[in-house]
């Protein structure tokens, strides 16, 4: 396994340094906790204190970025019959969790996996959300199923306000559900728990040159290898604010690994027919769903501009029927604008196919999807802000069902891209 850790992260080559503990006590761990979100040392210390209340003879290593400003976190003494927690000073690659940065996040996840391998841990969990925003025992909540239920992947199920996590709600979660047959709510975490078996597979894939994204590919890999996945109900997390000028980069960076995984696991998902719910731990956290009135004019105008100017690109990707429907939609007034779920699903599937066929440059392809995505967001906002509108959960469930219903379209186009063109 030494091979697996080599080359994944330069810092892993260096001996991991424990703080305030004898070397023999910290040479191995049962659980490795990687803290990626920016947090002050006191918060990390508080999290460590909470981990120390975990019953049982567990050894928990907390990876802490010692480049962060401020004094090192202070940890209280160990208690008999409770977990032994120690800090490991590590220079994890800087990840920009707040913005696009998916490639750099992938590297960071890979580094945590390598550290866990080096410490011979039975599992690791990664906390990427801001710790200040988390419910205190999050780290253990996400790690517990790895030990108690022998889960291989623990995913969060955040309590979500209706206009949060829209990229996940519109594409990632429903498409993952339709493709792989499991109703995953947050396939890309980012707060996740990973078993030794799964992180070793991810490390091995990296050494064999398989271009897996350590974050985006975790869920598809676990699903396709029939590993056990459990969801844990969490409270709300603080989502990074929208950078409108950078939205197309976000879209390209997030969708690219998802579409690559679709290509990689095509033999698996073409066999899947129905979707099943995942086991969930904990009770859902209720949230206030009130939100201020939204102005969708800019988003609809962006859709209309895209429809006017990007026809030459969309024409290479979408079939004539979809283009015709989009042209009709672009003539609607803002208040009546609705992008039907069926059309949206076919658009996403057609873009996935064009990504596979490399119809045009992949970066151009994914960026040119931005006006369509904004059109969906505007449509979603309209649906939820109408008087007597359905709840977000019902709205997203109907979208998920549309993804499942449209899967036969995807399979046909995937198998016969030239022949099947409705």
């Amino acid at each position: 396994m030494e091979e697996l850790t080599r080359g994944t992260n330069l810092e892993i080559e260096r001996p991991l340094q424990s703080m305030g503990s004898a070397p023999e006590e910290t040479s191995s761990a049962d659980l490795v906790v990687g803290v990626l979100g920016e947090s002050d040392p006191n918060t990390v210390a508080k999290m460590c204190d909470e981990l120390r209340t975990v019953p049982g003879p567990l050894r928990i290593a907390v990876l802490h970025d010692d480049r962060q400003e401020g004094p090192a976190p202070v940890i209280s003494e160990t208690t008999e019959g409770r977990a032994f927690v120690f800090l490991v000073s590590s220079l994890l690659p800087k990840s920009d969790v707040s913005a696009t940065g998916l490639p750099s996040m992938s590297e960071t996840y890979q580094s945590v996996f390598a550290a866990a391998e080096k410490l011979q841990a039975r599992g690791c969990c990664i906390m990427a959300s801001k710790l200040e925003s988390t419910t205190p025992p999050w780290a253990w909540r996400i790690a517990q199923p790895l030990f108690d239920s022998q889960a291989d992947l623990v995913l969060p199920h955040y309590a979500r306000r209706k206009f949060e996590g829209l990229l996940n709600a519109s594409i990632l979660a429903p498409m993952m559900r339709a493709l792989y047959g499991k109703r995953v709510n947050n396939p890309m975490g980012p707060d996740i728990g990973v078993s030794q078996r799964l992180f070793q597979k991810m490390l091995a894939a990296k050494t064999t040159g398989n271009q897996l994204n350590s974050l985006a590919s975790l869920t598809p890999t676990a699903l396709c290898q029939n590993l056990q996945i459990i969801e844990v109900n969490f409270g709300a997390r603080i989502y990074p604010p929208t950078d409108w000028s950078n939205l197309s980069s976000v879209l390209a960076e997030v969708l690219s690994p998802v579409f690559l995984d679709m290509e990689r696991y095509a033999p698996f998902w073409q066999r899947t027919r129905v979707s099943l719910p995942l086991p969930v731990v904990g009770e859902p956290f209720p949230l206030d769903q009130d939100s201020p009135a939204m102005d969708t004019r800019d988003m609809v105008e962006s859709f209309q501009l895209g429809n006017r100017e990007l026809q030459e690109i969309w024409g290479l990707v979408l079939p004539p029927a979809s283009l015709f429907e989009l042209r009709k939609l672009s003539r609607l007034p803002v208040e009546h604008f609705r992008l039907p779920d069926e059309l949206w699903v076919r658009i996403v599937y057609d873009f996935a196919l064009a990504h596979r066929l490399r119809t045009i440059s992949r970066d151009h392809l994914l960026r040119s999807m931005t006006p369509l995505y904004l059109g969906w967001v505007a449509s979603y906002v309209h649906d939820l802000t109408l008087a007597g509108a359905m709840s977000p959960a019902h709205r997203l469930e109907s979208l998920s069902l549309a993804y499942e219903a449209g899967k036969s379209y995807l399979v046909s186009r995937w198998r016969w891209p030239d022949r099947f063109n409705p």
Partner: protein
Amino acid sequence: MWEQVKQALVASTTRFLTRFANFLPGLVALILALLVSAVLAWILAAIVRRVLASFHFDERLGGWGFSSLAEWSPMKSPTRLISRSVGALVMVSGFLIGIAAFDFDWTYLFVQKMFAYIPDVLAALIVLFVGNVLARFLGRSVLIGAVNLNLQYARFLSVVVKWIVIVLAFAMALEHLRIAPGIVELAFGILFGGIVLTLALAVGLNSRDLIAKSVGRDVEKASSEAVEDPLRHL
């Protein structure tokens, strides 16, 4: 008198026939060279086509970012474009070899000059090709970027960028071909300067309202976002 005319006629006929006899082997050699080169061109083109098709060159080319080349290729197949280019090159070489078979000074000089010119032609073709691909790629990048920034003049920006690159590539190709280099330089300077000046004037004067509207909307949007934007994408 009649005898002299007869002698002149015989001498002229002899000269013509001698020259024709000297010319004939060259002509036969030219025809033979063309025939052999045609056969060679056909064989080489077939080999190149098969080799490229065996590793799915057309699909791979798309993956390397040259998908626009297909639009310029016969039957939308870059493999065919390359194989036919190889065939044409062999045919041209055969023609030049055939021409050189004529034992005349001017054919020798012509062939020598043609061979010396071939690297320039190839360089010009490469410059044109790369310039064209680059122009289309950059034009598309600018178009998508500008649409995503909600700029109403996205198409205009894209076309300007595309034509600037094409004009630049064309001027560079003519420079390589050594076709009236002074005039090309001057014309390019005037044309390029004209495009930039037109763009500046369009932005500064004619599109003032458009830009003011666009910038105004951005400012308005930024200020409204600063108040509250409940949308979260990631």
